[in-house]
């Protein structure tokens, strides 16, 4: 009998140890997954620097302070707004599928540790980085003529309302998600929202003075610092390794680990293919290899692969990138034809290639093409129409565009009384 009791105790201790082990394993997994999402969020936040440099470089030096300022503020204002209401609107946990609200702020209570369990705070961090990305895309499209105050209002609306609502449709479990629409990391939810919002802004604002000549020709307004633009693209490329792989939301578990690695490679290949394709097409069309086109091509490839990076093969990723690289040049030329002035190509890169990403998910990713098209158009239309409305209201209130004189002097002096490159001799004519 003693014997049995001995064994029993022995056993119980063993089980206890085993239970502890299981717990410790879960705790490790919890640490890994949250760490992974945290680092991904940091990489995505770094993209803000990329956008700021890209846009500052592609615009005139007389608007540099303004564009930098818009970039830092859409992040700052966006973070506060997305904290207060945006997150609650985007992830209400249920709702009618169209709009719902979970409440203000973000919880700080972690669930039981385990693989794939995310702390609500890091989830918010990752999500806010995405919201800020969508918001900042617009700053480039409206550069050089939008009032600074109008941009702040826009930032509040997009991160507090417009982005969360369409985000809810898909990522929050709303109607698009229920339909089976797929957008892995946000070709539509993030990039098309930004791109089409920017398009609305560019249209309502009208072109910069002198951008389209009376004789119908268009006049280029060369970027003032392409070194910064190239830096911006490199930073964006790097940041995208948080954007796409991070969207797997977990790395523990062989499936997750494997998926993250495939996503990272697909992202790389599509970006590279986009850059090469855009360079070659531009070379053919304009008889010279054009740097800014190649830079836009890399971004186009990145946007195009965002919706489907987990669902396609490496070779398909290259094809998606090539098409995106072609599309972005077509998009830039189209806007030029339509006399829409989008100084940095925000719509061709994020809007058009965002759409392409959604559709490519239907072509290559194994998702229903019809639903992909429907969802892609729905999100794009939502962003375009609501922002068209917003910018039109601002216009009617005369809050939208600076005066002709202010625009010619440049927004840095007229809006901020500050120059970006003090001391440097700069010709702003021609």
């Amino acid at each position, binding site marked *: 009998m003693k014997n049995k009791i001995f064994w029993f105790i022995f056993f119980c201790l063993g089980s206890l140890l085993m239970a502890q082990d299981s717990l410790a394993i879960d705790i490790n997994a919890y640490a890994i997954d949250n760490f992974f999402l945290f680092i991904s969020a940091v990489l995505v936040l770094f993209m803000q620097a990329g956008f700021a440099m890209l846009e500052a470089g592609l615009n005139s030096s007389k608007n540099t302070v303004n564009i930098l300022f818009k970039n830092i503020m859409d992040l700052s204002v966006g973070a506060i707004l997305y904290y207060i209401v945006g997150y609650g609107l985007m992830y209400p946990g249920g709702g009618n599928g169209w709009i719902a609200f979970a409440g203000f702020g973000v919880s700080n209570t972690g669930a039981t540790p385990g693989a794939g369990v995310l702390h609500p705070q890091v989830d918010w961090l990752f999500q806010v980085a995405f919201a800020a990305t969508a918001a900042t895309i617009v700053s480039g499209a409206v550069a050089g003529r939008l009032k600074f105050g109008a941009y702040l209002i826009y930032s509040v609306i997009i991160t507090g309302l417009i982005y969360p609502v369409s985000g809810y449709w898909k990522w929050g479990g709303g109607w698009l998600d229920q339909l089976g629409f797929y957008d892995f990391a946000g070709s539509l939810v993030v990039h098309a929202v930004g791109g089409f919002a920017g398009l609305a802004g560019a249209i309502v604002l009208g072109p910069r003075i002198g951008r389209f000549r009376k004789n119908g020709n268009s006049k280029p307004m060369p970027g003032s610092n392409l070194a910064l633009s190239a830096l911006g693209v490199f930073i964006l490329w790097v940041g995208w390794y948080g954007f796409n792989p991070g969207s797997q939301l977990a790395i523990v578990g062989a499936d997750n680990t494997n998926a993250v690695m495939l996503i990272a490679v697909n992202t790389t290949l599509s970006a590279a293919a986009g850059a090469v394709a855009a360079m070659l097409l531009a070379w053919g069309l304009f008889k010279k290899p054009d740097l800014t086109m190649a830079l836009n091509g890399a971004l186009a490839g990145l946007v195009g692969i965002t919706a489907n990076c987990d669902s396609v093969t490496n070779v398909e990723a290259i094809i998606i990138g090539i098409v995106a690289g072609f599309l972005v040049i077509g998009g830039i030329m189209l806007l030029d034809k339509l006399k829409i002035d989008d100084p940095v190509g925000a719509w061709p890169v994020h809007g058009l290639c965002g759409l392409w990403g959604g559709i490519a998910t239907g072509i290559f990713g194994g998702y229903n093409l019809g639903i992909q098209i429907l969802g892609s158009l729905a999100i794009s239309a939502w962003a375009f129409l609501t922002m068209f409305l917003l910018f039109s209201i601002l216009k009617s209130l005369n809050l939208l565009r600076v005066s002709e004189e202010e625009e010619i*002097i440049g927004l840095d*002096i007229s809006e901020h*009384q*500050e*120059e970006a490159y003090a001391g440097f001799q*700069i010709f*702003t*004519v*021609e």
Partner: protein
Amino acid sequence: MKLIIAIIQPEELPAMKEELLKKKIYKFTVSNALGQGREIPVHEVYRGIAHEITLLKKVRLEIAVNDEYVESAIEAITVVARKDGDRGRGKIFILPIEECIRIRTNEKGSTAIG
């Protein structure tokens, strides 16, 4: 032969250029300059410190012409310049040129100018 030096507002250069070409004045030299005039100074604030910039950005246009073109050149410039505001639209100075040489051909005098 005269050297016309005009200090103008930078944003007016493109239009003046077109006007000059219309008047068959095809050649001139442009440089940038800062002008101290009696214009309303540009008000800047840098890190909380207000300061006035009285040296404002200008463009300096140099046009060497034969005497008979002087009037057209002046006209091309003055016709474009905005006349509103009460200050700062710039000046034209006319200086005598004694000789002009086309570097490429060593041509001299009034045929070299255009």
